[in-house]
């Protein structure tokens, strides 16, 4: 590490607060570009490390069940061809209208959980509990719609009313469950990272108990609720994939735009962001920080609950044991998107595609689909370390522009803003101070 380097970050750490306040607007614009660059670089690096994982695991597996793709005498055979794995991954995600439909189905679900996490992040809260909020929201939807169905006439209008009621029920239950860690954080100083993780376990256990003991569908052995009436489900539309409705995807995109507008264009959004970025300034400006904590966690939980509602109404048709880990994937989506609601859309598409493709690599190449889980973790790891890219930039001397762009300062002001990337990142996602 060079001396120049060290000095830089000491400076930046000292005055980042003031600078941040002065140029909040400009930095946000600049950081959009830099975040995209960091995310792309993180993706490329994950693919590179993923290639190593594929090669090594192929080596471990040998002797190979089929012809190895390469072998080194004395070392062994590489059973998996990384290029082939990535090719099948992409083809599996986009290769046919059916595959595209599966990818878009996953994308749609991830948009909601990604937005849920992003809203909390923006308020300076680390909501790891999206999964639990989604699980209970889904249960609220499943039970609510089944309960309300007899009161509503069948047919299109009744279906729309029921679906709307289901979404509302999901949002309500998810919101209440999200508000709990918010209140614990605000009024009891309980660290939300830990409480939300614990509440995930509680939510799953609670839902399982409720369904298996009280609300179980008597006609099946599985732990699941009675199915919602067919007219309440979102009809499959476009691409002919059973569990995907283009209308829901459009709704998700609209929600992303709405959340973006809320954060940028409303007083509430401004207060929410400031309390996340500069809690002291927000408090000084008259924001009730405690109430804001509860509100933003409730909002985050409500969006997660809507995600649960979509899972029930678009995919499953009922609440069932073993809801996929959409909430945890939402964390990945949001981090990759730099917690930007609009960025959540492409990030969801990427992880949706990985999910769609993961089935194909296991089915066609017998490469375990958990590979995608490794890639997911690697992406997060690399996104967390913008400094890494900056150092590479310095090492290979790509000049100031490349250096600056990779690490996070706007090109306008390369001298002083150099280290704003890492500094801001740690400010944004503060989890440390508030244990």
């Amino acid at each position, binding site marked *: 590490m060079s001396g120049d380097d060290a000095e830089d970050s000491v400076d930046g750490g000292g005055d980042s607060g003031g600078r941040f306040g002065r140029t909040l607007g400009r930095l946000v614009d600049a950081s959009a570009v830099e975040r995209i660059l960091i995310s792309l670089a993180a993706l490329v690096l994950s693919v590179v490390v993923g290639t190593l994982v594929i090669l090594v695991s192929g080596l471990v597996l040998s002797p190979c069940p089929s012809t190895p793709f390469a072998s080194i005498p004395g070392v062994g055979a590489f059973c998996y061809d990384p290029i082939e794995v990535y090719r099948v991954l992409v083809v599996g995600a986009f290769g046919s209208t059916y595959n595209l439909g599966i990818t878009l189905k996953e994308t749609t679900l991830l948009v909601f959980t990604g937005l849920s996490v992003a809203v909390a992040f923006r308020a300076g809260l680390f909501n790891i509990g999206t999964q639990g909020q989604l699980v209970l929201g889904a249960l609220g939807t499943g039970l609510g719609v089944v309960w309300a169905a007899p009161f509503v006439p069948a047919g299109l209008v009744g279906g729309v009313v029921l679906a709307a009621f289901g979404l509302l029920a999901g949002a309500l239950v998810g919101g209440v469950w999200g508000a709990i860690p918010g209140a614990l954080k605000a009024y009891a100083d309980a660290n939300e990272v830990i409480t939300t993780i614990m509440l995930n376990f509680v939510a799953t256990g609670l839902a399982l108990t409720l369904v298996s003991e009280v609300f179980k569908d008597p006609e099946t052995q599985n732990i699941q609720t009675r199915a919602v009436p067919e007219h309440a489900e979102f009809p499959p539309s476009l691409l002919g994939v059973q569990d995907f409705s283009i209308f829901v995807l459009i709704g998700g995109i609209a929600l992303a735009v709405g959340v973006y507008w809320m954060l940028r264009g409303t007083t509430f959004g401004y207060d929410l962001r400031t309390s996340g970025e500069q809690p002291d300034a927000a408090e000084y400006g008259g924001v009730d920080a405690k109430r804001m904590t509860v509100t933003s966690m409730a909002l985050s939980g409500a969006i997660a609950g809507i995600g649960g509602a979509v899972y029930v109404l678009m995919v499953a048709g009922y609440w069932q044991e073993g809801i996929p880990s959409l909430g945890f994937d939402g964390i990945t989506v949001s981090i990759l998107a730099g917690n930007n609601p609009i960025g959540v859309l492409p990030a969801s598409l990427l992880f949706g595609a990985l999910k769609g493709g993961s089935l194909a690599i296991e089915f066609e190449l017998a490469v375990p689909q958990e590979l995608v889980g490794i890639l997911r*973790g690697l992406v997060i790891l690399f996104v967390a370390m913008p400094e890494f890219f900056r150092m590479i930039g310095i090492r290979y001397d790509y000049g100031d522009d490349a250096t600056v762009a990779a690490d996070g300062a706007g090109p306008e002001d390369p001298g002083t803003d150099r280290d704003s990337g890492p500094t801001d990142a740690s400010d944004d996602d503060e989890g440390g*101070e508030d244990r």
Partner: protein
Amino acid sequence: MSVGRLPTGRRLLVALGGLAVAALLAVELLFPANPITDIAVVLATIVVDANYVSSVLRLTVPIAFAALGGIFAEKSGVINIGLEGLLIISAFTSLAAAAALGGGDPNQTQLWLGFGIAVLVSTLFALLFAIVCIEFKADQIIAGLAVWLIALGLAPFASKVIWGQVNSPTIGTFDDWTVPLLAEIPFVGPVLFDASPMVYLLLVAVAASWYVLNRTAFGRWIEASGENPKALDTVGVDVRKVRYAGVLLSGFLSGIGGAGLAIGRVGQFIGGGTTMINGRGWIGITAYLFGNYNPVGAFGGSFLFASLDALQFRLQQVGYNVPSDLIGIIPYVTVVVVLAFVGRTRIPSAAGEHYESGEE
């Protein structure tokens, strides 16, 4: 030390109170038809049962080792929330290594070798995390999350590559160590002197951690590195090295915890869902938080959570037909309740921040 002891004691008292409330609520919830006294009698007989206490100690092993590791990392200034991932990695590695060495039926020596390899691999993982946090100034919370997510993908992935499924085959576990004569003492004997080697290791580790942190120069460095790195730098100690040591220790200790669970107690790696670790690393974090970074307090916290975990097995054995999922959430509810009661823990003031020496 005398200054630090009081808050810890009070903290534990509050925690115990929280636990009692949670337990009472749970009992009230679970057995509306039964008078509480009946249950209390059952609980009392369970708790003084040596078998119960032994099994609690075994369940304490992974939680407490993760907690001890977390103390060293966080006190040195690096918050390691990736403990769960380190436990997963070492649990898997211990099984894979022992099974590979012993051809599916490893003997005790091969089990111990597998154990050692797992601890090594976990430490290497922690080294990776340390480099990412210290050299590349990564956000510690996100990087820790990444460690967890990578482990959550890597362990089942590797299981499938090796065994064709996410679970490993079952192999043997460590034999218990029996201390002659002492093992004959009623209650204490079977609990403390006829136990898994992992339990002995844990008791030694708790005492050693306490000693290192409170009585040695290295302990003071760790403390200063998290509280006032600049001062430590001024007296000529390299903050980066101390932080590396802290994080590596967290990997080492978590490695013992994860391997201790997999080949110390279960004899299998289970990789489905949240894996066999199932949140124990997270509970470990909570345990050291309300033990206020004191190894003895963290052990106490881990023991309490483990006892709740063991209670659910016991209640079912005794014949109470309660939904297992509901009992299963008691430890997690307790963590939330305890955290709400304990509230803000004063974390080391420089934890989570990068430190750059000005003279480098």
